[in-house]
């Protein structure tokens, strides 16, 4: 009965959802590069406007998107503090013992922090609006040319989708085994770190045994259904570019043009 959201997919339907996953993968990459090449805060504001539009056009909401920053808070804070203290450039703002904060330092610190935040937010747009299966499909298709030089594009995407398929099953199984061992008096909650790690053995061994058994049976079932690797395989859903993909691409190209202009003008 466990509901696991992987890759934080947020089910919905809007312009962004209907885009081809390949378009979204490529454009996300383009936006990340855009964030990197921006030299101005106005440029960041442009990207942030885009994130805002995504948050509201999809009904995901900015609040939900900002939640995704939580695990990265430490890294962002650290980047901010290090830049603040180590960059020395321009007028002095604070001088307190060996601590010296300069105007240039503050600017770089804020700049780097904003850049990181925008990176996370833009890549989140991708994971929030693309189901894991569409993501694997898109990745496989994009990587397909690489399979000519021996890159296992199909195998990697098959592995990813099987992993996605079995995560809920194995979560459920973990819970069952946990209960069974608790009924035999196992204690998973108390004790020091070492004792707790040891207490996991009765949970992990059966879980691995079962995972191997499942893998074995699944392999057999796949073979019985004529599976023999990616060669000559077709797809139920052929990925297809539509008009909206061109619109999205054009929008990103326009953002690039504005960004380059902003950089050249050297606006704040």
């Amino acid at each position: 009965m466990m509901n696991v959201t992987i890759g934080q997919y947020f089910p919905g339907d809007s312009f962004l959802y209907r885009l081809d996953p390949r378009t979204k993968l490529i454009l996300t990459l383009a936006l990340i590069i855009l964030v990197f090449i921006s030299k101005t805060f106005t440029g960041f504001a442009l990207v942030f406007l885009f994130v805002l539009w995504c948050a509201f056009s999809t009904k995901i909401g900015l609040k939900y998107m900002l939640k995704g920053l939580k695990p990265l808070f430490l890294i962002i804070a650290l980047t901010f503090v290090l830049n603040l203290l180590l960059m020395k450039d321009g007028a002095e703002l604070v001088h307190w013992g060996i601590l010296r904060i300069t105007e240039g330092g503050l600017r770089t610190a804020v700049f780097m922090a904003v850049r990181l935040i925008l990176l996370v937010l833009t890549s989140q747009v991708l994971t929030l609006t693309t189901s894991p299966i569409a993501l694997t499909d898109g990745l496989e298709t994009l990587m397909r040319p690489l399979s000519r030089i021996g890159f296992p594009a199909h195998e990697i995407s098959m592995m990813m989708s099987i992993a996605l398929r079995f995560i809920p099953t194995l979560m459920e199984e973990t819970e069952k085994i946990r209960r069974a061992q608790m009924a035999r008096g196992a204690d998973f909650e108390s004790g020091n770190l070492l004792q707790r790690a040891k207490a996991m053995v009765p949970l992990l061994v059966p879980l691995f045994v079962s995972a191997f058994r499942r893998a074995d049976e699944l392999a057999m079932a796949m073979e019985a259904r004529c599976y023999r690797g990616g060669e000559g395989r077709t797809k139920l859903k052929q990925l297809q570019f539509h008009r909206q993909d061109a619109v999205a691409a054009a929008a990103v190209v326009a953002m690039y043009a504005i960004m380059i202009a902003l950089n050249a003008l050297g606006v704040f």
Partner: protein
Amino acid sequence: MSEAILRLRDAAFQYEDADARAVDGVSLDVAPGEFLAILGRNGSGKSTLARLLNALLIPSAGSVEVDGIEVSEQRAYDVRERCGMVFQNPDNQIVATVVEEDCAFGLENRGVPSKEIRRRVDEALREVGMLDRALASPSMLSGGQKQRIAIAGVLAMRPKIIVFDESTAMLDPVGRKDVFGLARRVNREEGVTVVWITHFMEEAVQADRVVVMDKGKIELEGTPREVFSNVTEVLSLGLDVPEMMKLSRDLRGAGLEIPLDVLTVDEMAEVLGKWQA
């Protein structure tokens, strides 16, 4: 009887690390459109036999012919296309995270064009009554529903034969009846030949023919009535017989001359009712 669709001649198989053959000289013909039940205790060789029919295993001696094709390494995929298989554990045979994607898996492997896959997947899902769940995640389905998806995946391949390897063993009675009923319908309406491997004699009694295996060999064979009337023998092979057959054996033992082959409650009530009159 028309030409057999499954033809086994002294078929045998031995696993590498085993000291005895798992299937030991089985000869058997299955007619097109037949519903054949295979019974046998655990380790009697029935699952190994099933795998020979699908070219998951290649016979180490003798021959297995599926729709005129001799099972061999080279023709494995042709055999699998003609003879689909549904396994025991509903969880471990579903590959995809979306029902319709799973149903399409076999067709994708065979390189069928997308449009044709779409058509056949929808048709198969409708057939098993799961079209409205086409976009659901399999992990949200019940065991019986998962087995329906597995059957749809096989049906989409349009096989001539489907082997069910204890496909109801892990289901509850409702799911069991449901999946068995579906197999019966596919057999009757689509003319698909069914090999139904099971422990449940209440399923086996509904088959056209029953084969009982033990130690890799066929021990008993015939209509359910013929096979199950050997009450003592069937029990000694680690199986069960219909309760009514046990009852008629008991009644005969006490001097009441009931026919031996009373299979169902209705038949027994009928027989006893006539006697009363």
